[in-house]
């Protein structure tokens, strides 16, 4: 059985189910309220599929005002609320409880304004990440954060989790590309923060809203920075016979003053899985593979790649292969972005997301393999080497009793190691429920109390996604303040 526990539902809410549902249907179009258990089951989990629980009801509002009406209603009735983007969270950020109302932003998916001279786009927050880039692609602009799930994931979820992607070494993550939001607070008030200008007038509220995991409000609109597309981009593949050497090569590239847009690292198990799945042309006989991508005009790319090849040669690469066509480049990225899917084909897995100082790469990779032996599980690594954001994929068999528990224990051990060497529990996926109980490792009581006091400001009743991010024991007294029945 699963290790992560959600708080028991408030019985007084479950008892009032019919009454609460008819209340919801009276304030917004009843078409936008889903209550049939056969349909709410669709919303029982996100991409952390090991944990499931259908909510009391799901609402799919179509306007900011509808979101405000629902939140006001939930606030008045002390109903827990679970915000949901596209449900692609790997951390359980959108996992409901049985007494909760899911507010999904899927129907808030319009493009509101494209302003090329001022380099921003304004969208409703349910729009997918990729749709934002596609909306401006024809004009040679793009939106930089590119999580692997970009085809499906919503901007609302990107903002909640401060999502990253493969190209953030150069362009930053969501918070560095977010200019403004319209957000509805738990009390149903509409808050506008930021806009088409570049810095805050007062405290940087936008900065703390981004990455607050849906605990401060529901973002319904976003203003995003768009950038002129580079003239071109080209990846190079570099294979090495050990992880240590590949790690040293990464360090030398950065020390040389080169700033590739992407610097991705895959270890042997990951390379093999991706190659079998995507036929990307990866060499499968190397221990570590780097994908390094640079941008610019053809001659600029040639120059940078020559510098990179020169550095790589000092490390005796087993393979050094430049992409020779747009098609090859696409394939190389297709392989990398399909990594999680490829793993899913061969085994159940859990994807970790710690970050470490890049100088610790060889050490951590080595220790991870030792731990894999101890736990008797396999681990494959796909990660953003330039910024030290690891994605160990731990393979397990969900049908084998005890295997998931073992996997979760191994995952925790890896994340503890990340913190121990100076890193953090999560680089881009968020804490959600998955890493909630590990927060004590990275933060002390005072640190966490300070964070919870910020939530007190935005959501004094602790109704919004409240059983996430913080260890349940320390958030309990706040969450119970408003609960009528104590579970």
């Amino acid at each position: 059985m699963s290790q992560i526990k959600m708080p028991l539902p408030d019985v007084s809410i479950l008892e009032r189910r019919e009454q609460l549902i008819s209340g919801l249907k009276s304030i917004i179009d009843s078409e936008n309220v889903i209550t049939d258990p056969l349909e709410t089951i669709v919303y029982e989990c996100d991409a952390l599929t090991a944990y499931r629980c259908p909510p009391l009801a799901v609402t799919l509002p179509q306007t900011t005002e509808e979101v405000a009406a629902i939140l006001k209603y939930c606030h008045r009735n002390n109903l827990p609320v679970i915000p949901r983007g596209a449900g692609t969270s790997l951390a359980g950020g959108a996992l409901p409880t049985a007494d909760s109302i899911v507010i999904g932003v899927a129907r808030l998916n319009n493009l509101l304004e494209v302003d090329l001279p001022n380099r921003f786009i304004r969208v409703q927050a349910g729009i997918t990440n990729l749709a934002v880039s596609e909306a401006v692609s024809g004009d040679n602009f793009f939106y930089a954060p590119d999580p692997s799930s970009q085809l499906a994931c919503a901007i609302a979820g990107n903002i909640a989790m401060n999502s990253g992607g493969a190209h953030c070494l150069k362009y930053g993550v969501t918070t560095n590309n977010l200019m403004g939001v319209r957000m509805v607070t738990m009390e149903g008030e509409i808050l506008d923060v930021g806009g088409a200008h570049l810095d805050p007038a007062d405290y940087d509220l936008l900065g703390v809203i981004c990455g607050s995991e849906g605990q401060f409000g529901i973002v319904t609109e976003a203003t995003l920075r768009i950038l002129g597309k580079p003239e071109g981009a080209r990846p190079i593949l570099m294979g090495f016979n050990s992880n240590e050497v590949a790690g040293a090569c990464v360090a030398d590239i950065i020390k040389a003053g080169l700033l590739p847009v992407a610097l991705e690292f895959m270890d042997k198990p990951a390379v093999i899985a991706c190659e079998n799945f995507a036929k990307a042309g990866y060499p499968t006989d190397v221990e570590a593979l780097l994908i390094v991508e640079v941008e610019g005009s053809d001659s600029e790319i040639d120059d940078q790649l020559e510098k990179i090849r020169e550095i790589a040669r000092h490390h005796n690469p087993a393979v050094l292969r430049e992409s020779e066509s747009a098609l090859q480049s696409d394939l190389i990225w297709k392989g990398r972005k399909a990594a999680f899917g490829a793993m899913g084909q061969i085994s159940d897995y859990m994807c970790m997301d710690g970050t470490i100082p890049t100088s610790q790469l060889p050490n951590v990779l080595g220790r991870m393999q030792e731990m894999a032996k101890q736990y008797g599980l396999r681990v494959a690594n796909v990660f953003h080497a330039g910024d030290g954001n690891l994605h160990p994929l731990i393979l397990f068999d969900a049908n084998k009793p005890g295997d998931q528990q073992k996997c979760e224990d191994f995952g925790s051990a890896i994340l503890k190691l990340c913190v121990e060497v100076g890193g953090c529990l999560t680089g881009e996926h968020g804490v959600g429920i998955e890493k909630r109980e590990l927060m004590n490792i990275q933060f002390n009581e005072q640190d966490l109390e300070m964070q919870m006091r910020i939530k007190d400001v935005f959501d004094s009743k602790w109704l919004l996604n409240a059983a996430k991010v913080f260890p349940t024991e320390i958030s309990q007294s706040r969450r119970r303040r408003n609960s009528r029945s104590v579970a």
Partner: protein
Amino acid sequence: MSKIDRPASEAELADFVRAAVAKKTKLNIAGGGSKQSLGSEVIGRPVSTTKLCGIELYEPASLTLVAEAGTPLKTLEDELAKNDQHLPFEPADYRQLLGSSGEPTIGGIVACAISGPRRIQVGACRDFLIGVRFVNGEGEIIKSGGRVMKNVTGYDLVKLLAGSYGTLGIITQVSFKLLPAPETTACVLLGGLDDERAVSAMSAALGSPFDLSGAAHVPGNADSEPVTMLRLEGFSSSVSYRAEKLRELLLPYGSGDIEVEREKTDKCWKRIRDVGAFADRPGAVWRISLKPGDSPDVVKTIKRSREIDVIYDWGGGLVWLLTSTVDNCGEELIRASVNHVGGHATLIRRPDGAEVKCIFHPQPQLVAKISTELRNQFDPHAILNPGRMGN
């Protein structure tokens, strides 16, 4: 002036704040004191972080720097230069503009969230700040973020502390993501453009693939022609290629010149960064942040009713405005013009005796309410720089 307390460690500073809480002593917080005139004057016991000084960690291959808050900016910049790296957000030096002395510290740069011309390309101070430690208003030591450049663990208090002018906590340690310093710089210069055409040219340049690291416009006056400056940085072959392409792209705005002499371009951009043009001229200086395309109109509107001089940075998204102190330094007119389009105006230099209602731009009710409540959570006894940001 009373003696300045200089705690020698974070723990000592925390003790000091707890003692201040017990005695209900309000604190006037500074680093080197070079930016003490920003915001409203604080009446309180002076405390400085200058003894919290030193580089804790610098790993060039990880692009990471951790330093104590009182470390002079110059110390950091010199150390980074040895490895051809830098703080990418181009922190400004306002000493000449403000007529102040003292050594700018990295904590002060963060507390005031000071970013220079390169902000439009790489991001602001807050974007490179990856970790902070601070002492809150109860004397508790709090940390957020860390030393790794990708970190979404817990709420991002780092962003809140940047630009909080010491009102949420006394920053004791900061961590930064660094970048390689550019090998070469070139500047495409366009002459004779009016403000509107200049902003349009800067927009065209910034939307191009040529990766500009600066776009500023200095309108002309009786003595000089208007000049629009577009900066490119990177490896030399790439810079000369992009400079030529950019010049071609901007031909509809006139035949631009390309300046490649490092000493000259560095001097020009330092002058933009530090608002050097207004340093030796009397008057109030406003800093206005708005949508780039709106700035020429806002300037025109204000100009109709009062005499002003302006400098455009950030492709027009940042306007520095010099004006006299009459009518509260033009506060009402300037704020109304900005409110009409969206954005904000902050009074950066207030000459002696000049009065204004609000130094920082008044915020909508809900935003103001949240900001006040946040402040109460960080500093419940209101002893940290009370009144600095008007709260």
